[in-house]
């Protein structure tokens, strides 16, 4: 390195190059001064520290977005990245390209991921879980036999309900080897078909309870044919085993209490049933007695009543008309016959009168109809007469024409049809003339063809009144 002074820019540049040359490495420490992502840039700035030192850290927005846990003060993290220098301020920062939680944070992260996965598979669906009987007569307690927990459970049940039979199944409750022993104990417990299995453990750190966050254990619990009640750790501790169990209680004692009603309740139930039993029997006996005494009271009465009823019946029969005066029956029949005869006799004239009336009505209608037909015909006739008059050739005669007929009465329309001396009749508008043909003339040529005088018959007429 030259001994002459250099500019600030150069100095920082040298430092930056040196730091960049260090490459990537991993640093473990505690988050401090975390302020959340920058509102504008989305990048995160915080310090990573341990007991002796501290360094400023930058997590770019893209890296921050990938985190599946919450960054916050006090969290232990492992960062992967490299140092860099911001030239303008000369400040050195660690640029973290990867952030992972370690210690408890890492554990919680794993547990949360597993819980999410199992929930998605439906292992935590309340509807699919087995129901824990209100009164479990036999329970298997799966826990460590060396701890005080089993004593707590036994003591709790001894106080609450001594009828509950307790079967202890031992397992390890801590450490990496614990889950298989818990699984084995659960299966052994299931094989004895108890009413419920208590899976219990005393309190401990998150790390201590990790055995109950095991995936195989969770699946075993969910698949058991016996309901599992958990009491693991203390109130705020929730493990995966708690989440998949039929019922989660916060402590072993609470779990033990939840499987059976207290003796006092059983005692009360017995007392109440005894009371009901006595009262219902007393009522039933009263009923039987009452019904019996009722019957007993009715027995002599019923005998007397039976006799009375029969006597009344006989009296009624004896006083009937038939018994009193049998001839009346014959009289009744005779009267009925008379009535029938009268009705038959009445029926005939009534029928005739009805027929006559009907005929009369029909005759009236026929007359009316006939009159109408005649009227219609006569008016039609006069109409026809009028048209006939209008069409009649006689009407033409009125205008001066005449019809000529020969002696045989044939109409003469050609002069050549009659000879001279023949007698003809000319019918006029009014009356007719008898005449004799004196001369016949040939048909005239049409006026336009010839100017010759037309030839005609000469007729001698005799007046002939019609």
């Amino acid at each position: 390195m030259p001994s002459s002074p250099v500019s600030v820019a150069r100095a920082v540049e040298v430092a930056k190059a040196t730091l960049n040359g260090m490459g990537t490495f991993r640093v473990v420490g505690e988050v401090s001064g975390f302020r959340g992502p920058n509102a504008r840039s989305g990048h995160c700035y915080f310090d990573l520290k341990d007991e002796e030192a501290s360094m400023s850290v930058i997590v770019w927005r893209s890296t921050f977005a990938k985190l599946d846990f919450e960054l916050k003060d006090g969290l232990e993290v492992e960062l992967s990245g490299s140092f860099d220098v911001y030239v303008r301020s000369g400040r050195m920062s660690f640029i973290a390209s990867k952030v992972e939680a370690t210690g408890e944070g890492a554990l919680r992260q794993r547990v949360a991921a597993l819980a999410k996965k199992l929930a998605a598979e439906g292992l935590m669906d309340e509807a699919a879980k087995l129901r824990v009987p209100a009164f479990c007569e036999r329970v298997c307690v799966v826990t460590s036999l060396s701890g005080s927990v089993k004593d707590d459970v036994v003591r709790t049940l001894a106080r609450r309900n001594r009828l509950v039979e307790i079967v202890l199944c031992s397992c390890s409750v801590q450490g990496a080897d614990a889950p298989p022993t818990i699984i084995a104990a659960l299966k052994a417990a299931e094989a004895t078909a108890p009413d419920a299995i208590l899976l219990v453990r005393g309190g401990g750190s998150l790390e201590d309870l990790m055995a109950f966050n095991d995936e195989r254990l969770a699946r075993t619990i969910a698949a058991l044919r016996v309901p599992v009640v958990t009491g693991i750790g203390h109130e705020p501790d929730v493990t995966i085993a708690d989440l998949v169990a039929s019922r989660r209680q916060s402590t072993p004692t609470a779990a033990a209490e939840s499987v059976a009603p207290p003796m006092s309740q059983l005692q009360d139930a017995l007392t109440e049933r005894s009371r009901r039993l006595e009262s219902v029997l007393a009522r039933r006996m009263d009923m039987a007695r009452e019904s019996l005494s009722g019957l007993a009271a009715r027995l002599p009465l019923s005998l007397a009543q039976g006799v009375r009823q029969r006597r009344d019946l006989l009296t009624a029969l004896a006083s009937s008309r038939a018994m009193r005066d049998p001839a009346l029956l014959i009289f009744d029949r005779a009267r009925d016959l008379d009535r029938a005869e009268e009705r038959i006799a009445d029926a005939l004239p009534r029928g005739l009168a009805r027929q006559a009336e009907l005929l009369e009505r029909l005759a009236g209608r026929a007359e009316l109809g006939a009159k109408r037909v005649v009227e219609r015909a006569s008016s039609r006739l006069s109409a026809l007469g009028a048209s006939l008059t209008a069409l009649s050739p006689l009407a033409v005669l009125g205008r001066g024409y005449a019809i000529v007929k020969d002696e045989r009465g044939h109409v003469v329309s050609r002069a050549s049809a009659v000879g001279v001396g023949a007698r003809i009749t000319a019918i006029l508008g009014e009356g007719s003339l008898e005449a004799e043909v004196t001369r016949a003339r040939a048909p005239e040529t049409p006026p336009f063809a010839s100017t010759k005088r037309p030839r005609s018959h000469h007729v001698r007429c005799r007046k002939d009144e019609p």
Partner: protein
Amino acid sequence: MSDEKPLEELSYKEGSIELERIVRSLETGDLELEEALERYERASALLKMLRARLADAEQKVSVLMAQNEAELEALPAELSAPKRAFLDEE
């Protein structure tokens, strides 16, 4: 009922359920008197048995499986007393 279990074979819960059933059937009141009396007799016996069980109840505790001898040693005397034949030592 012909399928009645002898009292000593009933668990407390079974006895309790049967008792409740009998009381209810009596309360509906359509039993013949003889049957009602029979039912009452059975109910009385059940009641007596259940009361006795409640009074004399002693917690039964047994060990199905233990991890090792040390655990068994650690058991208090009154707990380890009914050591069962199926005790399983791994």
